[in-house]
């Protein structure tokens, strides 16, 4: 908490609360290893925004003496390294979620480990993030891990990447170093689908360009990390327009009320809209909408005219249509494809390898179907981005596959809709979550093969042309091939 904020709280708390009532929320992912100063950066954000309290600081100080790596300074990293075993080993194993707040936004940080053997943890953290902060040690430049992290970020559909070029203090804040890394990264990004890229020269240890702008980078006229986070507009990516409503729960408290509860995955809906229930295809109209947020202790039936993602609502329909959990309600004029054959990208997350042809449970939004991986198209080498032919998937493997379900579902591609294009794979014996998947394409009819368009092999010249267009004409939003 900065002094200015402290004064405003002290002066007029009600005014402060009014400002903070109107904040929005932003989730970001931090990628990098301990060596890049990632925990230090997060510790710095929490410390400088005074999210760290005195007793926690005291605990970190006493632990600094025990496990610390920074000599006399408090090891800010110890503020965030959670589990005892991690503190002893000095590594961050699992995804940890951290919180801090400014007067513009509430932030949720998914703090994920950087090593290759923890790829699944990073994928997990990336799945809910809108923005990624990729740390690069200025002394080392772009490493294999940078390529890996960038690939995962792009795969999970994160459109905004902040490249934090850290440890600039060790290189006298040399502009040339920064510029070289920026160019190298732009080059790398042409191979990926990262629409917006931002670059910040930084010293997390000393706080340069983390919260405030540094006096040691006069050649840099951009914002600090926190200023950038506070001002980013991510609404375009957050809200696809197609109305999608996975039915989560049927609420039937008495004979006169039958409501369909769920979270609006995307788009918006209003009373009177013509809707279709999938996969059955039956149509009706929206009779009423209850937003859970409007309900109070005194008024338990508050109706509204319309609602939008990501509200949790209850919808009633004009006609008695058979609707149950797992169905998807959409606008009749905007229906996604329905099929049991999907082309998907899969991240394997279990020690036991994935077996082709074995039955797994596939949970997509609120529906569960039985599914089999029929074929592995290719595995992606996440360091070189090369495609490899493999027979099975091991822990942390990422691959393009053909998935066949025992019944059709209404599905969007993940590119179009993160909420309805994503699924998890559950092992039916161990009950573990063994994989995560993203829908790439949906076959037109049940019998059809998944369209082969994306399978097209491009020549080197074509790939270079694509990369050239993406690098120099980003406003064309050219697709990566």
């Amino acid at each position, binding site marked *: 908490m900065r002094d200015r904020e402290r004064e405003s709280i002290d002066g007029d708390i009600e005014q402060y609360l009014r400002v903070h009532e109107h904040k929005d929320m932003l989730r970001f992912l931090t990628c990098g290893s301990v060596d890049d100063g990632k925990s230090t950066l997060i510790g710095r954000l929490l410390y400088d925004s005074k999210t760290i309290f005195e*007793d926690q600081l005291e605990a970190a100080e006493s632990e600094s003496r025990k496990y610390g790596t920074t000599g006399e300074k408090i090891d800010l990293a110890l503020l965030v390294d959670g589990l005892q075993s991690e503190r002893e080993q000095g590594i961050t194993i699992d995804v940890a979620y951290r919180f801090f707040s400014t007067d513009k936004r509430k932030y949720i940080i998914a703090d994920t480990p950087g090593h290759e053997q923890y790829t699944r943890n990073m994928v997990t953290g990336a799945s809910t993030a809108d923005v990624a902060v990729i740390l690069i040690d200025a002394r080392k430049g772009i490493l294999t891990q940078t390529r890996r992290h960038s690939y995962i970020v792009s795969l999970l559909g994160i459109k905004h990447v902040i490249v934090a070029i850290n440890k600039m203090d060790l290189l006298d804040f040399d502009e040339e170093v920064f510029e070289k890394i920026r160019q190298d990264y732009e080059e790398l990004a042409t191979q990926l689908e990262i629409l917006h890229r931002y670059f910040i020269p930084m010293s997390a240890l000393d706080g340069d360009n983390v919260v405030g702008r540094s006096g040691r980078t006069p050649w840099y006229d951009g914002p600090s990390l926190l200023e950038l986070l506070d001002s980013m507009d991510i609404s375009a990516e957050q809200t696809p327009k197609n109305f999608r409503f996975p039915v989560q729960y049927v609420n039937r408290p008495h004979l006169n009320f039958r409501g369909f509860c769920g979270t609006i995955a995307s788009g918006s809906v209003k009373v009177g809209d013509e809707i279709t229930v999938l996969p059955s295809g039956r149509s009706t109209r929206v009779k009423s909408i209850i937003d859970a947020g409007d309900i109070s202790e005194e008024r338990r039936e508050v109706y509204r005219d319309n609602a939008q993602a990501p509200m949790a609502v209850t919808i009633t329909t004009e006609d008695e249509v058979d609707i149950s959990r797992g169905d998807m309600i959409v606008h009749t004029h905007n229906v996604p494809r329905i099929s049991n054959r999907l082309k998907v990208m899969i991240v394997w997350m279990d020690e036991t390898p994935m077996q082709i042809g074995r039955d797994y449970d596939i949970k997509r939004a609120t529906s569960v179907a039985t599914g089999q991986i029929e074929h592995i198209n290719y595995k992606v080498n996440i360091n070189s981005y090369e495609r490899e032919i493999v027979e099975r998937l091991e822990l942390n493997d990422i691959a393009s596959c053909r998935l066949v379900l025992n019944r059709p579902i209404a599905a969007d591609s993940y590119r179009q809709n993160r909420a309805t294009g994503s699924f998890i794979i559950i092992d039916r014996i161990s009950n573990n979550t063994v994989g995560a998947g993203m829908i790439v394409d949906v076959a037109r009819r049940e019998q059809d093969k998944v369209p082969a368009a994306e399978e097209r092999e491009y020549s080197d010249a074509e790939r270079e042309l694509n990369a050239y267009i993406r690098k120099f004409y980003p406003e064309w939003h050219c697709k990566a091939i």
Partner: protein
Amino acid sequence: MISHEKITHLKQLEAESVHILREVAAEFSNPVMMYSIGKDSSVMLHLAMKAFAPGKAPFPLLHVDTKWKFHEMIEFRDQRAKKLGFDLIVHSNPRGLEMDISPFVHGSKVHTDIMKTEALKQALDAGGYDAVIGGARRDEEKSRAKERIFSFRDRNHRWDPKNQRPELWNIYNTRINRGESVRVFPLSNWTELDIWQYIYLEKIPIPSLYFAKERPVVEYEGTLISVDDDRVPEELRKKAVMKKVRFRTLGCYPLTGAIESEAETLPQIIREMLLSRSSEREGRLIDKDQEGAMEKKKVEGYF
């Protein structure tokens, strides 16, 4: 075209929590919601009421009564459950009652082990619940920062922090075998400030112990505690003084530190919280028992 409404962070948190509660109701056959009477529980109750309106939440409330709660908490508990129409299950450890466990005599560790952790396991085994909804938040303590929203527990209610199921998007794996269970934390992504702001905006009732008032208190093991009844040892009671205090967290009164405060309204509480420099768990004596205390307790089944 509908004009786009700005979704504030509290609306978003609320919607996420409602989503989680509905997922529990849809996927589990015998869920229960832990009710600890504190501010987080009050928010949870409020969210559960919203999630299933105009109907009632399809699960009961469970309170593990250590018999050392502030007497006002118990009155508040009964009155809230009745007003919102929840079934309330109260359990106390009969073995502990027989042994007459007292934090003053047996210390906080023994008291917590027997009257909280063991009692909780008894209540969960007796109820055979497959999902147990709790009000823990990830910002409370470091080991909680890594816990899943749907957190798997084995037959012995144990948590394995190194072997947690990956949890992606808002798709929750609810699969378990008979005898196993899942702890569900709908408030995972709320911070203390979010909770207070939400209580303020939604006018959610909370026990008056949170508000500053003249109360009889005495210093005990370095903390000010309330003299809530005459089980406080005589020599301590003799030293009791009236002070204007309030409580940042509510638990067993001998283990809950009071803070001197002038905050009599919610905005004043929030102001005090924002300006104070210690985190809320500091008022709880049990966390300080040993380093990594909470992680150990959680592994053993504590909430």
